[in-house]
């Protein structure tokens, strides 16, 4: 079973954070113990989306070896309905921290990879987390490739934009394939909602273009845009079609059905 899930994309603005948050919330809603990680150190956003004012330790501190991972984890289970557990590990949004993270050398990145890899033992094995969801930065950056190497499964978020399609295809061939990663494609912001029969046709087209299975097709929902990041749809709007798509994606990942 895929325990560590990284959400990645070639370009920015494809909806990685939206998918990460809702995927993690969907796991938690179904009784799982989940931790959501903000690994986008150049543009941290989870602190704002999860409305967390301040925290003593950040993920930056853990990766630098300054603290234990348990100091970073914030328990948000009280915001989730049901028996699931929902934790978050946030990236430091201060300009100073972003600048510092951009200037790290290769040795630091190697150690950071080691610390990310050790989460499998500390969180999955010892503390019995069911899923770790990594929200990454777009493109080929150290933090996102570290996350991909650590993950069991990569959710690749893309749009129909020509440059995104081309870049995503290249990334699938030259990044995920090299690391032998299991991937599932999510096409976000689809303008024309399509019927179920067309969905199968789209799946075939996606397989032909990208050579990977399609995990989900997300129409461009005006309600999601209007929410301005104020809701976690998977929690706050359980009957919304977007939530249903996220729940289905979570189910497929959990059941290891993406192939």
């Amino acid at each position, binding site marked *: 079973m895929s325990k560590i899930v990284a959400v990645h994309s070639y370009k920015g603005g494809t909806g990685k954070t939206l998918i990460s948050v809702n995927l993690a919330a969907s796991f938690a809603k179904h009784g799982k113990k989940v931790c959501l990680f903000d690994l986008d150190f150049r543009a941290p956003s989870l602190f704002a989306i999860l409305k967390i004012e301040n925290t003593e330790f950040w993920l930056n501190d853990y990766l630098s070896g300054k603290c234990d991972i348990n100091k970073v984890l914030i328990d948000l289970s009280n915001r989730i309905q049901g028996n699931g557990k929902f934790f978050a590990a946030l990236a430091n949004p201060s300009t100073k921290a972003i600048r510092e993270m951009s200037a790290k050398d*290769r*040795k630091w*990145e*190697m*150690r950071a*990879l*080691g610390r990310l*890899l*050790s989460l499998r033992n500390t969180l999955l094995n010892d503390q019995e987390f069911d899923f770790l969801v990594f929200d990454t930065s777009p493109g080929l950056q*150290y933090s996102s*490739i*570290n996350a991909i*190497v650590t993950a069991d499964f990569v959710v690749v978020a893309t749009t129909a934009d020509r440059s995104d399609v081309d870049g995503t295809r290249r990334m699938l061939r030259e*990044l995920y394939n*090299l*690391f*032998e990663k299991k991937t599932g494609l999510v096409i976000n912001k689809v303008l024309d909602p399509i019927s179920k029969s067309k969905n199968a046709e789209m799946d075939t087209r996606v397989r032909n273009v990208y050579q990977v299975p399609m995990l989900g097709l997300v129409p461009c929902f005006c309600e999601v845009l209007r929410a301005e990041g104020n809701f976690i749809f998977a929690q706050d709007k359980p009957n919304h079609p977007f939530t249903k798509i996220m729940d289905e994606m979570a189910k497929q990942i959990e059941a290891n059905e993406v192939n």
Partner: protein
Amino acid sequence: MNNYQCFVRLNKHSTISCTVVHVKNTRGKPVTREEILSKKPLHVLEKIRENLERLNEKMEVMIELQRHGQKDVQPLNDAPLDVMTLLSMPDHLRKTAMTICRCGRATAEEVAQQTNRARAVESAYLNQLVIMGYLKKERQGRKAYFYADRDS
């Protein structure tokens, strides 16, 4: 009298099988039959086996170097095994290096179990990565452990 050196002769095809010619102690004098029988014959045999295994590993590296060409194996000093390095590695070495990254520390046997390749092949690749400076190697008794040194 605790350490012995084992001298072996490779067969004409330079394959891994070899013949024990004679055994010397650390003072360079040949170990007599009486010495072997009266002192620690098991210990001597153990040393012979250890030396043969080391020789075996060196031979495997040489064979792999010939197979893949020298260009893949440029010795470096403590090169960081980061993701960009992993990306630029040839496929056969990347698989081995990735396994060490995941395991932290492992023997060739343990890596082989993960990659479904032969132990001898993994041993060769691991030793190549040591020569390239990406991995460190540490012996504990008969076992050789490989790891990426993240602390130095």
